[in-house]
């Protein structure tokens, strides 16, 4: 029995991204394509997203011109490929407060948002520090925090402290403290709804960018493969690795069940298709009663 369908929806991409940004220490190893995606989790009762992409309205053009972020499409266009609208989304899990994950909240007027309290608290703390510590504020848009206030005032922002089970039936949230960001979060879907699920998926946010973060060449330390953290850690690489271990433990070390959202190679593991907007939809799994949207 599978309660949820899970799809990774590409909404934009960077064609040439330094590999060292993906994989810690991979300096001078060229470029990879970096898709920008959010994840749709859908059942008969709920339509949820993991992250919402960036606020193109305010700075999309700047990103496109300066950093080569290409082919951005709105949530309305992206979701229409699955016969949905942003208004249909009732729940959003924000994995962290970077602008490219937390920016488009205004596009989802009926959703309740979940974010780790640690993430908000420490950003606010970091904002109060002297300029020489500004690196701690990378990729944070001050206006996103304000959008968060608007959500909170409407009663649509829930701050989570640590791990929470069954936020939606069979969906758990977990904190990876001081890792990619201060309070990064991953989402675990127990798709059979059981406490000791045999059908678990982990949606990793930016704790894992690509498959190589889970299974990288380990010959340098004399092992076949090893975890290797992503290129950016506000906290520590150690905490990223420990979070990876926790995520892997949840899926019984089946690395195909930890889903990175910046991974072009999802198409090699899961059914997928390219939309007319030249963006990919990857079908991670299907609920029992749902038809494929990629075949």
């Amino acid at each position, binding site marked *: 029995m599978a309660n949820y369908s899970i799809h990774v929806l590409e909404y934009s991409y960077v064609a040439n991204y330094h590999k*060292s940004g993906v994989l810690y220490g991979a300096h001078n190893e060229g470029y990879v394509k970096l898709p920008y995606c959010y994840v749709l989790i859908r059942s008969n009762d709920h339509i949820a997203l993991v992250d919402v992409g960036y606020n193109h309205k305010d700075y999309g053009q700047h990103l496109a011109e300066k950093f*080569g972020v290409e082919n951005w499409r709105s949530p309305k266009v992206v979701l229409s490929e699955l016969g949905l609208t942003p208004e249909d989304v009732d729940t959003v899990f924000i994995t962290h407060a970077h602008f490219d994950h937390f920016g488009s909240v205004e596009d989802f007027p009926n959703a309740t948002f979940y974010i780790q309290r640690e993430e908000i608290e420490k950003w606010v*703390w970091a*904002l109060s520090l002297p300029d020489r510590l500004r690196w701690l504020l*990378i990729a944070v848009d001050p206006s996103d*925090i304000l959008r968060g206030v608007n959500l909170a005032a409407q009663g649509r922002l829930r701050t989570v402290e640590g791990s929470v089970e069954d936020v939606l039936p069979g969906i758990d949230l977990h904190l990876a403290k001081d890792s990619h960001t201060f309070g990064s979060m991953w989402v675990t879907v127990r798709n059979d709804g059981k406490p000791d699920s045999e059908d678990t998926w982990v949606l990793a946010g930016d704790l894992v960018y690509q498959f190589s973060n889970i299974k990288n060449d380990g010959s340098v330390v004399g092992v076949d493969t090893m975890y290797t953290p992503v290129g950016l850690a506000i906290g520590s690489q150690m905490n990223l690795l420990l979070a990876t271990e926790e995520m892997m433990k949840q899926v019984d070390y089946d690395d195909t069940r930890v889903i990175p959202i910046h991974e072009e190679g999802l198409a090699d593991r899961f059914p997928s298709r390219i939309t007319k907007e030249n963006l990919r939809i990857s079908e991670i799994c299907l609920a029992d009663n749902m038809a494929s949207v990629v075949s």
Partner: protein
Amino acid sequence: MNKTNIHTAHCDVWETQDSTEPLVAPPPGYAPDTAQYLTGIRPVYDSLGRVMAQLAGIFLLYLSSQQRELPLDHGMFNLAQEQLDSCEEQLRALRIPHQARRHHGLLSEMCKHLQQVSKRIDSIETHQRNIFDDTDTRLLMRQLNKAQRCFIATSEPGAHLSPVDFSHACCSCGVSKGV
């Protein structure tokens, strides 16, 4: 904030001399007096953005706290207020070329809105009152939203006045297009 083992905003550890002078070259493509203004305004712009986010963040934590307690690191709040006062002083001290009057005026307006926000947040703490009701919340948010509109309207990417430091964002590892 007290749960964490990090230094609070008012901790002495932060009170060391800042060794780095701002390295802001006059932005190209502007008239000299405008360029001088933009160079001078940049730290004020950045600081106002941070103050706005700090105040918004403090209020967000209050709103999302089930107990409706103000989880205020007082040093942090006071620091935001000090930074805001400092921004106002710096704004007053700047020489304003004709072309930048509207820009300067909007940032001054942003300061006024943030001062209102700060007063309202302070009133929550001062009174620890249950009478901070939906009307108060609406008024505070209106001021915050007005401040945000000023902030976005005064962005000037050519002069490095940008709401987000994109230089370290995930996307910044992309190959720059002619920059």
